[in-house]
């Protein structure tokens, strides 16, 4: 289908964007990479009166490391993150996640901030930001504020963003030496929406895990930290017994909701499988590449 009619303005400055948002509020919609917005317009799931195209605001783009943090501009594309040597060095979790995001043609246009502001429950970046304890910079005419990723995602496509605010930048503390990360995702085909996924990070001191973070995507309405598992594994080696014991806590940590294809029980089982794989990977960094690159071909192979 085709998008409904709307007015359009290509913003020349953030000040102009703030002004337009003050005037039009929820009747206006920001257009960044457009990879979700245009699909939803085409399907007539959304009908804004005004599209404010922010995609040419260069100040919202780019990756910079300083003061122990990586600052990622909201308009930085998935492909720019994929190609960034800085990201590969400082935030390997993002580099591990990016191949799971749709396809090359979409990664060339879609943006980091757009994915976060939309808060699709199956999206990769929100879970990564929760795992990495990122801060989001939200700006409006009155000024800027910072909101932690862990407080930002409120539910299904619901965030702490107010109608007059723009997500301008994401600040991610660089994990220190000794940290390892893993990003796992189960999808029917490469690039499809995740059935379940897990962004995982921990400090590994000669096989002992600490400061563990496990953030799930595709399980509930918003990214979910598995706090019970994290606590159960703190200071432990990832032996088969320890993993099995810690994974028990998932039942309290997660509230899976069924989607069109997978029941809540299936999602819980997949979360257990991913937890085991991720903990093993964080402990050994021997993550089998098949988990990273291959699509899942059958239920039997993902349930083991």
């Amino acid at each position, binding site marked *: 289908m085709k*998008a409904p*009619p709307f007015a359009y*303005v*290509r913003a020349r400055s953030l000040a102009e964007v703030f002004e337009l948002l003050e005037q039009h509020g929820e009747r206006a919609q920001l257009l960044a990479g457009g*990879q979700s917005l*245009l699909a939803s317009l085409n399907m007539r799931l959304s009908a804004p009166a005004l599209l404010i195209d922010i995609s040419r605001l260069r100040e919202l783009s780019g990756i910079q490391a300083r003061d122990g943090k990586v600052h990622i501009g909201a308009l930085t594309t998935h492909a720019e993150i994929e190609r960034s040597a800085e990201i590969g060095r400082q935030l390997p979790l993002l580099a591990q996640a990016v191949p799971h995001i749709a396809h090359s043609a979409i990664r*060339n246009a879609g943006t980091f901030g757009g994915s976060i502001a939309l808060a699709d429950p199956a999206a990769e970046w929100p879970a990564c930001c929760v795992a990495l304890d990122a801060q989001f910079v939200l700006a409006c005419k009155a000024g800027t504020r910072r909101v932690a990723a862990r407080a930002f995602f409120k539910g299904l496509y619901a965030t702490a963003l107010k109608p007059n605010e723009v997500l301008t930048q994401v600040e991610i503390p660089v994990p220190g030496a000794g940290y390892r990360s893993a990003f796992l995702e189960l999808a029917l085909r490469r690039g499809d929406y995740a059935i379940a996924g897990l962004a995982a990070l921990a400090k590994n001191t000669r096989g002992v895990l600490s400061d563990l973070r496990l953030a799930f995507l595709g399980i509930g309405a918003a990214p979910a930290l598995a706090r019970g598992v994290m606590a159960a594994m703190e200071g432990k080696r990832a032996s088969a017994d320890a993993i099995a014991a810690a994974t028990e806590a998932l039942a309290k940590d997660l509230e899976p909701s069924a989607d069109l294809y997978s029941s809540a029980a299936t999602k819980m089982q997949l979360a257990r499988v991913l937890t085991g794989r991720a903990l093993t990977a964080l402990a050994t960094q021997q993550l089998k590449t098949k988990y990273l690159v291959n*699509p899942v071909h059958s239920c039997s192979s993902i349930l083991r």
Partner: protein
Amino acid sequence: MTSTRMEQTLETTLTVNGTPVTRRIPARQHLIDFLREELGLTGSHTGCEHGVCGACTVRVDGKIVRGCLMLAVQADGRRVDTIEGLSDSGEIAELQEAFHRRNALQCGFCTPGMLVAAQDLVANHPGASRERIREHLSGNYCRCTGYQAIVDAIEDVLAARRKRNRQD
């Protein structure tokens, strides 16, 4: 001040296959519909219109994108290359020949998008493995061939180029 710039149609200038084009474009029109309906460049196809099938794949400023997930007005000032341009310039001649030889198409609906995506891989990842080819084409659906012949054709082109480079 700003309200005067809020419009439903916009004067837009872009370069399509090397030729500058200026048109007044409805803001709601996708790039793919602009190319097909305003310019008559019907080689790129309109398939799912929500970014899943890849039939509308074109290049904007040298990068492949979905023609259905970009507004034509967003291409203002940019360089757009379609299958017609890539074909006329000879850039994809080797891929076209390999697709023909390997019988890598049946109905042909997906083929222009496949070729644009394949050329992106051939140009940027000359060492791509068969698995990498499949990964790169994961965003382009073909409902006829089962993909094997398409992957074979792209693999042929990559192998031939590597062989030539070794001989140079």
